[in-house]
């Protein structure tokens, strides 16, 4: 039991930090521009595929350095030549632009790398168990992921609170017109944040593509989860995104191991439910199988009862 708890905690920490790398960029982009970027997970996918392509050509370590800026550059171009032009048609058009972009990127990945998952292996240097606890191994690669994401977290925190550009970004989050009036180039800041957020998503892709799987459907599987994270954490709140990433990762990781269903729960309080009919499965679903729906249930409930999210300051 202790072994299960410790390893679930460690794994949810790894997954949670990966989710944070994605959600931090998304939540900043949303609170600055008011655009819910549906293509954010597609940048994550691009990062994974760029990482895969570069690491098969010249190795994993150069890929780790080169791929994220490439994705960031792509993101900045999308903002400059796509999103900025659509801005005049309003938020719905901007949102639909990112939806269409996500669609095109997925098809483009299909086009270039094929429809099946590619083999994107763990780099040789990190392919060993770093420690063994209760006969279960913890791989060095997961430790490395944890290290990278913590480093990014610290760097992000430092940039946003201790540097000049970070202060401008923070000011532009809440008062873009005022920042503009003070003579800062707000559109350029938008482009920078969009590009930076995309680069972070790309980095998450380079390391997450190995940890999870690199396939054309990866954006569609992770994308909604990232939305759940920023909604639960509160739109625009980095701390909220951090807490919600860890929380959601923990929920998903722990739910996998719990095999109780509603009828077990009822049996616990002494009711033996022998329900027939068309929804009889509802009583027999084990908690471990509800993994895919738990985040969405969580999001819908939060949106209905606390639309600010856990730590957000304003409603969506």
């Amino acid at each position, binding site marked *: 039991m202790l072994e299960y708890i410790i390893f679930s905690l460690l794994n949810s920490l790894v997954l949670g930090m990966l989710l944070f790398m994605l959600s931090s960029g998304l939540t900043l982009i949303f609170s600055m521009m008011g655009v819910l970027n549906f293509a954010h997970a597609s940048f994550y996918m691009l990062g994974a595929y760029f990482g895969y392509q570069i690491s098969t050509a010249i190795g994993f370590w150069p890929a780790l350095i080169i791929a994220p800026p490439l994705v960031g550059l792509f993101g900045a171009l999308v903002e400059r030549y796509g999103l900025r032009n659509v801005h005049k048609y309003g938020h719905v058009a901007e949102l639909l632009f990112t939806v269409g972009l996500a669609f095109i990127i997925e098809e483009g990945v299909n086009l270039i790398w094929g429809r099946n998952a590619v083999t994107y292996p763990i780099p040789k240097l990190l392919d060993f168990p770093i420690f063994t606890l209760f006969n279960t191994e913890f791989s060095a690669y997961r430790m490395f992921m944890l290290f990278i994401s913590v480093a990014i977290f610290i760097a992000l925190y430092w940039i946003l609170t201790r540097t000049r550009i970070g202060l401008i970004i923070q000011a532009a989050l809440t008062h873009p017109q005022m920042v503009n009036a003070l003579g800062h180039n707000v559109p350029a800041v938008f482009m920078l944040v969009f590009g930076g957020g995309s680069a972070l998503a790309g980095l998450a892709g380079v390391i997450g593509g190995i940890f999870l799987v690199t396939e054309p459907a990866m954006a569609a599987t992770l994308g909604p989860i990232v939305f759940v994270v920023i909604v639960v954490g509160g739109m625009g709140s980095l701390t909220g995104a951090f807490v919600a990433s860890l929380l959601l990762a923990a929920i998903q990781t722990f739910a996998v191991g719990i095999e109780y269903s509603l009828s077990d729960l009822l049996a616990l309080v002494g009711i033996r439910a022998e329900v027939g009919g068309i929804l009889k499965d509802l009583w027999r679903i084990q908690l471990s199988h509800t993994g895919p729906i738990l985040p*969405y249930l969580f999001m819908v409930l939060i949106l209905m009862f606390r639309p600010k999210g856990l730590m957000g300051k304003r409603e969506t």
Partner: protein
Amino acid sequence: MIIFLKKFGIWLAAVLICVVLPLIFRSGFSISLLSQMGIAIIFALSYNMLLGQGGMLSFGHAVYYGLGGFLAMHALNRIGAGTLPIPIELLPLVGGVAGVLAGLVFGWLSTARASTTFALISLGIGELIAASALMLPSFFGGEQGIIGDRVVKLTITGFRFGKQIEVYYLIAVWMLICVALMYLLTQTPLGRVANAVRDNPERAAFIGYAPRTVRTLQFTLAAFFAGAAGGLFAINYEIITAETVGAQASGSVLMMTYIGGVGHFFGPILGAILITFMQLSLAGVTHAWLLYFGLLFVGMVMWAPNGLSGIIMVHEPVWKARLMKRLLPAYGLIALPCLIMFLGAMILIEINYHLSLSINPENPMHLLGITFRAQSPVAWGLSLVMMVAGFFFFRKARSVVQERWSEVSQTLKGGLTR
């Protein structure tokens, strides 16, 4: 008589077209294409009740379509077994009732705010239902879905619906009824207040209409029509799977409606017809059709946010002032570089699909009647040159079109002031 024709002429024409079309296009493929178009038209118009008329951007409208379809399919099986006395012609109503029930519950839960919150709740509900569809196999039939048999004894018209053409006419009748009802709804006080709530919920609340109630009503009615479309889906295909409630179906109705144009009532009809046609005909020709579809969608969002109907309606005053002849040459001028650019992109896309998907990429590929090797630098170079040159001339031609447009609109304004 003239007044009657003016008022109802377009509806008479629609009825006439629905009757005549299957007599002109008689092949099995075209009949099933027409049937699907009918279903898609209802679905897209019901979606526009949310997005266009109510200002609610939904990412989960397929939930009501799918649930309607599933309930109708269960009802169909009961009818076949003789335990449910509903004639098959009224099956879409069963789907509609399912839509209303689900729409009332989910609509009330999600319409407290419009905009992003609503969009996210609809996305969440969509994903919830899609994920639970696989967990509740006794209702949703699991991976393989549930099947039914539409040939039942209980009919009121006497048709057995064994042949596709009979199903087509059933769909056409329901389509006309639903379109007329949805059009009439836009003329009711509810339809008008829904527009008011879309444009300014605060003011609507001040004059005494609770935005949430109005949105919920609009949402429930939209869900009814989506459910009816789902019921027709069940009759048409005789199989329904969990995919019908999924994100892809929701996304596809969103794209149909938007490409058709949300600003005018007939927009989604155009979108549904065009996209269904693309889905069925292009999918057989090229693997890349989803990519073309996505490019079309993004192109519409970037350059024609009012959709096809918006493009058409912009020309209405020009047409009435008989000034189209001034615009047409400029359009011809811009069509050429667009075509060149598109051909260039198409060659590049098809080459890449050939390289990544075919069994042996070394085999020569066929495109537009030409056979060539995908590795040949000529093809790559040609496509790149075409794209670059096309883009260059496109920029030039665009300024000509803009010039003509400003001329024409000057003349139009002058005509008004004179």
